Each structure stands twice: as structure tokens, then as C-alpha cells.
């Protein structure tokens, strides 16, 4: 029976309490450790389709009669379009429709950032559409852009109110501390640059709208598109069979989808609106830059007595304030903590969620600060972290549903202990060192979410969901969970995703919530189907249900009988077994978090500022691991993306006009395969969270990108004595830090010279 419950929902670090209707979840968790299918490495069920180019992405969708849209964007960081004349553009060859400010959600006369969408048109070909952009006449009232985040804070130009957290008495604790460290840390603006750019194809059939879109959240696209267009939600069908990544920037329909829908309605033809790579780098969202002014006070033994942080988040024209102070508030047991976070509203392109928004930036500052405390006290950074371990949520003393961070530290120890050996391999200008950092993030379930499992006469199972696979291997993990519960071999399970008509509500592929939320729903649907299968088998073979089980695609009886599942399902003919399942609630009164540790080994050329990451050890505590192969691939991907964020990637603006300068991939420098460390060692605690759902699994998508940058920076300090505090650690930042270290301490002694 469904129950109405009050639960905490958390997506990307934003927590809200809400009523939800959940199904009772009567299933006990499986025992820990590898099972028949779950917990064992499985190659991607759709790997072959993807590798052979057969998988159909949104970028591949070409409908008969489809038009191509192009968007008129502001050339100014702040301006108001006082006149938008579409006449000449409408008369251009191939142009079928054109819309201006107010005609579609997202198109506005007030352009608050360079590249803000103002008007759009659709033409027979993409070349015609782009050519016609030149013919849209716009008169601009150009205004002075606000580009400096500190100035925005001073002027009160903020998104929302400053967010404050205060506990204990920081000033008093700092006055009594044996050591106080104060420093300013910075992180840069980063661009997602998913392989598939943001895009949608919209097609109307009567009053029904089909949206093909590259999205992490087809359900939200359905609801938002319907609401924005003022049509019933059930009139919108959203399809995303395969997608080329999102990293958080594709959690909502975006202006391109709504522009395509409106143009399609006007033109009476399907319309494709696909961002170019340049548009992607201008207006498709970014990880906001931060300025972090942090203070830590500690006793001589390394115990933290006070933490204070002022966080200025350069959100841009639009966006939301991610929890950048979260790590300072939650990672270590510290009684006196004061944080304030500002969301600066600037004339820069909008912020969007990006793989662990807020915590990536917050852990950067906090974990560098902690190492600076350890250095001042001449303590081992790992010991300092263990000493300050929080046994309960330091914010509100809530117990953790499960926390194996100490186990992560213990597992990291042998890798941490390599540092004498690593340092001794310093050679000429190449100094080597080791650094570590702790990971903290969310990753609970985000109910509700629904799944079905259908058994047909062929003896195959089909998992039906309205979820999507962002590219992390969701299809495979869900197939493993269904196969395990059904007692079927993996290849007998098909998983349907990427179609809003294929199931009930399904959670966003974001906030590390997919496996933790959809997994329990799929398992409970499979359990329901298995139960029905056994009921039918018991009737067919005239035995008690209690003695029957399903193993490896066979119905087996406790007394030794065994029948292929098909012998029962064949009886069904056109009848089908449909199992239903839903994700149960999160444990009440408990904090569900994920943890981990990265240990990075680096080499720094102290004459040229070149930094090479030579080895990374990663251990994460995310509950039960469903697919160890997919999980390690997530960790490797997070580390590689994080290395780009640490060493080479930065979005640059012209400081006076606010124009995005890094629009192409020669200027915005993603890491290449040559930048990946020669060795990444990846481990999991792999212990189910006994309090969390019928699966005990937490999310893993975001955790691996969180600690890598501070682990690298701490390794740089270990290698060279230089404090890098600004991302990215380019040649100039590295050389600056080295110079500063030389000036501070003319003869650096911690390294053999």
C-alpha cells in the first residue's frame, strides 16, 4: 500500500523537505559482496551499439521536412534590444519562421550576458538559417556590464540572499588556537563541453508535441515544456535514447528546446535547434568561479577548533547558489564554524550545475587550508584528517546512515606512505611529491521513481522506465539489478530508457542519484515479477510456492526439480507478467553522504612550471557497487576531467567587454589522452548502506571529481614547498607560487637539492 511520507530530497546538494507518496519497500537488502550478477564486472549492454555507430543520439535525429533553427545572440555583455526587426530575415531564402523577444521562453530583449538569446529563426537548411541571422536587425541600447564578483557583492547584486551558517564562537576559538591559517583560494569558470552539444528536435502532431532532446531529465523536460507552452503535460512526449554527456548542464529543457517547439508550431514543420560548439562554450552553462577567503584555527595536535569561510560565487546572469560552504560545514568535526556564501549576479553567461557543483570548489579551498594547517604544525596531513573525523553530522549531530571514511583513510595509507620514495625520485628540475584530499558529497536516493519489469512468453524480461542514460552505464546497472532479482542471465534482460511514455516518473540523471534511486525501483519491480512467475509456476507444476526459486533462467524446486523459465512463460501466450516497483524512502533522521580519498603523485618542473600527474589512487565509499567495471570507469573519468580542471581548463572573458574569448577547443583546453596519469588505481569500500533502500547503493557520478584538484595541489606543495591557491595551475600560477616560495624561504630544505 502506498504511504504518504515526509522525506528529505536532495539534488546537487540542495536539500528540501517534501511530501512524497512511496510504496512500501518490503525487500531485505541482498548480502554484501559480489552476487551472481550484481557486484561483478559487466561490459556495457549497449557498448556494441555505441561503438558501431548504431546508437541514435539526438544529434542524429533527422525528421522528414525538418527545419533548422539558428539563434540571434547578444554581442554585448549587457544591452537591451530596443528594436528587433525580423522582416528582412523572413524574406531570406529558405527561412520559414522567425521569432523575437517574448515569442518563446528564453528570448528576451534584455540581454544580460554576451551570447544571450534574443531572437531565432528556422530555415530549410542550417546554412540558410545561419546566413539569415545577419539579416535580423537589432538596435541595442548598450549598458555598462558588471563583471567583477567582489564588486557585485559590494553593490548587493546577488542571486538571493547571502547564505549564512554559524555555530559556536569562531572568534573566541581563534583567539585560543595554537595556530591560525588565513588564505584566499580561487577557482575558475569551467565549461562542460559534453561531446554532444545542447540540442532538441520538436515535432507537433495536432496538439501533441514530441521532443527529441539531449537531456539528463526527460521528465522535467516534459513538465517544463508543457507548462511553458501552456499545454497539458501528458501531451508532451520526450525522447532521449542515447546522449553524449551532460555533466549537469542538461537538467532542464533550456531555451533551445522551447525555441524549437515554438518555431515548429509556427512553421508547421519539425524544427531542430542545435547549439554549435561555440554557442556551447558561450551560453550553455558553466561551473561558476569562486573566491574563497578562509580561516582555520587548530590546536598543536591538529584538532580544528575554528573554521571560517567567505565564499563569493560568480554565478553570472542566471544560476543558483551551490553549496560551496558545505564541505566546511560538514566534513570535519569542528564546533565553531562560520560561513557566508554570496551568489554574485554578473553580466556573464549563466551558471549551471556541473558535476558536484559547490563541493568541487569548497573541497578545493578546505583541503588546501587543512594541508597548510598541517604544514604549520609539522603534522602529517593524513593524521590531521583522521584526528578531525566527524562521527556524526557536525551541523546537527545527525547520525550517518553509513560512513566508512576511516576505512578509506586506512586503505589510502600504503599509497600515502609511498611519499618518501616518490620524493627521493626527484631528479634535476623535476621535484616529486604526494598529496591527498578527502571527498564528501551527497548520493542518497531521491524518491519517488518508478519502474516496471515485464515477462513475456519468450522468457525474456523487459525493464520499463522513463529514465535516461546520461552515458554512465545506467542501462547496464539496471539490467544487472533486474537480472539478479529475477534469477535471469544478464542477456535475457532488456532495459528501456529515454522515453517519457515508457514508465512513471523517473529521477534526474544528476546529483549522483540514478543508481541509488532507480536501482531500488527496478529491483522491487523485478521482485514483483519474480513473485508472480513463481505463483504461476507453482500452479503449473502443482507444488508449493515456498519451495520454488528462479536461478539462471530456471525455476528450481527445493526438492531438486528444475524447469526452464520458458516452460512457464510459454503458457502465457499473449498474457504477460508485469511487475511494478518504486523507490522507497531515505532513512529518516539520518544523513546519507558519500566519502572518499584521493592520493595524487605529481612531478613538477621547477624551472618551467610544468606539472605532471604521475599516479592517482582513489578509494570511494558509496555503498554497494553494482558494476565494478562501470564504477571504475566513472572514477577514471572523474579524475581525468578533474585533471583538466586542475591544470589547463579555464573560460576567459575580455575584462572590459565581457566577451567570451575561449569559444573553441583550441582555446578552452580540455585534457588530452597524453594528460591522463600513467596509473590510476581505483578501489571501493563496497559495503551496502544498511539503512538505505533495498539496494544500499549510493551515487558515484560526482564523487570522483571532488578531491582530485586539492590532492594534486597538496602534492605540488609536498614536491616543491610552493602554495598554489588558484585554479587552474597554469605555468604562470606554478611559476608564481615557486617564486613566492623562494622569496619566503630562500633555501628550501625539505627536498634534496
Amino acid at each position: 500500500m502506498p504511504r504518504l511520507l515526509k522525506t528529505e530530497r536532495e539534488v546537487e546538494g540542495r536539500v528540501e523537505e517534501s511530501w512524497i507518496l512511496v510504496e512500501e519497500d518490503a525487500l531485505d537488502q541482498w548480502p554484501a559482496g559480489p552476487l551472481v550478477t550484481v557486484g561483478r564486472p559487466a561490459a556495457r549492454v549497449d557498448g556494441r551499439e555505441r561503438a558501431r555507430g548504431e546508437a541514435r543520439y539526438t544529434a542524429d535525429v533527422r525528421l522528414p521536412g525538418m527545419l533548422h533553427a539558428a539563434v540571434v545572440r547578444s554581442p554585448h555583455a549587457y544591452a537591451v534590444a530596443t528594436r528587433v526587426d525580423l522582416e528582412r530575415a523572413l524574406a531570406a531564402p529558405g527561412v520559414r519562421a522567425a521569432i523575437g523577444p517574448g515569442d518563446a521562453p528564453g528570448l528576451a530583449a534584455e540581454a544580460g550576458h554576451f551570447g544571450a538569446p534574443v531572437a531565432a529563426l528556422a530555415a530549410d537548411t542550417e546554412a540558410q538559417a545561419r546566413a539569415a541571422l545577419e539579416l535580423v536587425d537589432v538596435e541595442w541600447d548598450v549598458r555598462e556590464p558588471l563583471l567583477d564578483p567582489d564588486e557585485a557583492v559590494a553593490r548587493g547584486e546577488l542571486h538571493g540572499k547571502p547564505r549564512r551558517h554559524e555555530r559556536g564562537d569562531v572568534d573566541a576559538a581563534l583567539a585560543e588556537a595554537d595556530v591560525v591559517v588565513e588564505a584566499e583560494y580561487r577557482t575558475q569558470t569551467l565549461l562542460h563541453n559534453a561531446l554532444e552539444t545542447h540540442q532538441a528536435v520538436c515535432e507537433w502532431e495536432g496538439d501533441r508535441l514530441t521532443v527529441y532532446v539531449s537531456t539528463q531529465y526527460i521528465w522535467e523536460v516534459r513538465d517544463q515544456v508543457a507548462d511553458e507552452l501552456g499545454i497539458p503535460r501528458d501531451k508532451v512526449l520526450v525522447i532521449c535514447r542515447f546522449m553524449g554527456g551532460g555533466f549537469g548542464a542538461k537538467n532542464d529543457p533550456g531555451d533551445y528546446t522551447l525555441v524549437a517547439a515554438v518555431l515548429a508550431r509556427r512553421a508547421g514543420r519539425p524544427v531542430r535547434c542545435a547549439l554549435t560548439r561555440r554557442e556551447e562554450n558561450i551560453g550553455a552553462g558553466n561551473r561558476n568561479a569562486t573566491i574563497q577567503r578562509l580561516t582555520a584555527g587548530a590546536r598543536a595536535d591538529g584538532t580544528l577548533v575554528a573554521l571560517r569561510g567567505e565564499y563569493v560565487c560568480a554565478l553570472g546572469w542566471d544560476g543558483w547558489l551551490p553549496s560551496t560552504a558545505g564541505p566546511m560545514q560538514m566534513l570535519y568535526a569542528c564546533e565553531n564554524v562560520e560561513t557566508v556564501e554570496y551568489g554574485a549576479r554578473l553580466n556573464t553567461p549563466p551558471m549551471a550545475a556541473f558535476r558536484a557543483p559547490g563541493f568541487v570548489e569548497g573541497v578545493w579551498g578546505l583541503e588546501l587550508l587543512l594541508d597548510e594547517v598541517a604544514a604549520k604544525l609539522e603534522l602529517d596531513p593524513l593524521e590531521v584528517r583522521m584526528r578531525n573525523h566527524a562521527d556524526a553530522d557536525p551541523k546537527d549531530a545527525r547520525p550517518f546512515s553509513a560512513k566508512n571514511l576511516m576505512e578509506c583513510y586506512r586503505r589510502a595509507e600504503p599509497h600515502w606512505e609511498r611519499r618518501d620514495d616518490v620524493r627521493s625520485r626527484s631528479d634535476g628540475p623535476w621535484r616529486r611529491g604526494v598529496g591527498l584530499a578527502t571527498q564528501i558529497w551527497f548520493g542518497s536516493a531521491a524518491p519517488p521513481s518508478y519502474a516496471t519489469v515485464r515477462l513475456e512468453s519468450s522468457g525474456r524480461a523487459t525493464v520499463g522506465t522513463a529514465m535516461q542514460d546520461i552515458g554512465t552505464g545506467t542501462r547496464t546497472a539496471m539490467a544487472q539489478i533486474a537480472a539478479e532479482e529475477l534469477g535471469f542471465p544478464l542477456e535475457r534482460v532488456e532495459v528501456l530508457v529515454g522515453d517519457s511514455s515508457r514508465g512513471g516518473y523517473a529521477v534526474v540523471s544528476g546529483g549522483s542519484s540514478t543508481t541509488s534511486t532507480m536501482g531500488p525501483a527496478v529491483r522491487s519491480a523485478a521482485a514483483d515479477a519474480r513473485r508472480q512467475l513463481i505463483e504461476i509456476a507453482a500452479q503449473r507444476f502443482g507444488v508449493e510456492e515456498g519451495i520454488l526459486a528462479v536461478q539462471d533462467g530456471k525455476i528450481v524446486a527445493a526438492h531438486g526439480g528444475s524447469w526452464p523459465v520458458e516452460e512457464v512463460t510459454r503458457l502465457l501466450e499473449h498474457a504477460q507478467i508485469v511487475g511494478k516497483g518504486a523507490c522507497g524512502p531515505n532513512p529518516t533522521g539520518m544523513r546519507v553522504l558519500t566519502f572518499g580519498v584521493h592520493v595524487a603523485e605529481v612531478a613538477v618542473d621547477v624551472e618551467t612550471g610544468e606539472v605532471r600527474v604521475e599516479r592517482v589512487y582513489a578509494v570511494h565509499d558509496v555503498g554497494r557497487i553494482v558494476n565494478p567495471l562501470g564504477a571504475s570507469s566513472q572514477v577514471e573519468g572523474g579524475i581525468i576531467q578533474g585533471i583538466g580542471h586542475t591544470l589547463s581548463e579555464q573560460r576567459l572573458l575580455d575584462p572590459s567587454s565581457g566577451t567570451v574569448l575561449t569559444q573553441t577547443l583550441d582555446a578552452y583546453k580540455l585534457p588530452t589522452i597524453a594528460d591522463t596519469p600513467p596509473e590510476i588505481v581505483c578501489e571501493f569500500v563496497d559495503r551496502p548502506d544498511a539503512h538505505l533502500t533495498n539496494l544500499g547503493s549510493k551515487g558515484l557520478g560526482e564523487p570522483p571529481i571532488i578531491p582530485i584538484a586539492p590532492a594534486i595541489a597538496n602534492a605540488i606543495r609536498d614536491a616543491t614547498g610552493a602554495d598554489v591557491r588558484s585554479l587552474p595551475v597554469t605555468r604562470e600560477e606554478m611559476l608564481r607560487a615557486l617564486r613566492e616560495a623562494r622569496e619566503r624561504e630562500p633555501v628550501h630544505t625539505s627536498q634534496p637539492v
Partner: protein
Amino acid sequence: MSPFTLRSPSSLDEIGGVPLAGGTDLVPLVQDGLVEASELANIRELLPRGIDGDRIGAGTSLAEIERSPDVPDALREACRLAASPQLRAMGTVGGNLRQATRCWYWRLGFPCYLHGGERCHARDGEHREHAIFGNERCASAHPSDPAAALLALRARVGTTRRTLPLTDLYRLPTDDDRDVVTLERGELILWIEVERPDASAYLKAMDRQRFSFPLVGVAAARFGADVRLALAGVAPIPWLLGSPAELGDAKPLPGTAYKVELADALVRRALDAVATG
């Protein structure tokens, strides 16, 4: 992008439009409207290609040079560290000498000095990738790795009209002429001749391990007791450095001061590398 016609002339004498060889830089420039071309002439098959003694055909790809045991180390290494394998397979050495700056202001079509405008936007703007020499009017950085290597190797260039030292191919932009090369309209590079050094080297600092233009590239070639140094990524043109001490004459912008330090370290290493052998 305006449409253009691609023609394949049968000889270099009949070229109508803009000559196209590898196209790795030209095609994006045409797409962005930075080179106006209603007609492109594919001369890839017409250009001398291959390495013959000290002479390298202008149509030789960077990949071919990189794999050739006959070219001096500095040039081979400069090619190996340039771009990506795909681009090196397409890009020709002749085209590489003429490739346009990566200055974002210039590439984005700002009305900058190099485009004929009044001022250099990079000087007051974002310029971490920009010049430390010859940057008074335009602070763009020349992106070619092979050009620096060839300068150090005392290369001579043969065109459809003349033979000239590579040093004379380049010029800083002036109020009267914003071009950075001295080629006349319709003049094509046909071959490049290098002198054989006793030792040579090319060292490159970039933002990532591969597939990035030089922040600083340093080429050194030793001919007997004489060592010639040339730098990439430090001036609007490939930069011949008379002596290591000339680094003291650099006039970096606030955001390019690190390049002097970088160049200093790489020059010392390059000198060490060519000191013997």
C-alpha cells in the same frame, strides 16, 4: 560562412582564388570570414612534396617531416610537438609557415590593430598567451613551432618569384601594412632549404602535454661554435634571438611576464642540448 568554389587548377600558373594545401588553418579562417575567398584553389597536388637532401617541398606534411631521419632534430621535434596526429597528417610545412595567430581577439574578429584597427585589444585585455617581444602595436603570438626551428636552422625559402632567407619572410605589422609576411599577392612558397647543423633541438612549453600551441617554443641549432636561437609563441612573428642575453630586452605585458622566465629556462636547456653531439 559564404559559399565558395573549390577548383583544382592544373598548374601553379593558373591559380585564381586563395591557394589551399592542407587547409587545416585556411578552412576555419574562411568559415569564420577572416579570410575572404569566393574561390579556393587546391594546389596540394601541384606543390613540391617530399624531402630531398636539405630541401623540403612546401607541400610536405608535418607528419612526413616528423618521420624523416633526414631532417635536423629541431625541425623533426618541432613537427612532432605540433598539433595532433590528424592535423599533422594534413597540414603542410609551407602552410604552417603562414598560419595565422591564435590571438582570440583577432580570431573573434575584434577590430584590432592586426585587422587594421586602431589598437591592440590584447594589450589591455586577456593576453596570457601573447607576446613578449615586438608587441608594441600588436601583442599577438606567432603559433608555428616549425617556423622557429627553421629560423634556427638558417632556412632559406624558395617562392614562385624569388629565394629569400626565412628571416625575410616575416615582418612586424606596421601602420601601413598589417601583414606579418612579406609575400606578395599570388606568391607561393615552393620549398624550404635548411642548413645542416652540428646539433639542434626544439623545446616547447604548452598548456597541456599535447595538442596545444606553444606558450614558448625554443629552437637551437649549433653550427660549429655558433649557436642560433629562435623562439615560437613570443612575438607576432617567429623570433630570432641574437643571444640568450637578449631575453633581458623582452617587454612582457603583465600577463606574459612568466613567458620570459619560461623562455629563459628553455633557452638554457636548448643550449645544453646542442652543446655536444
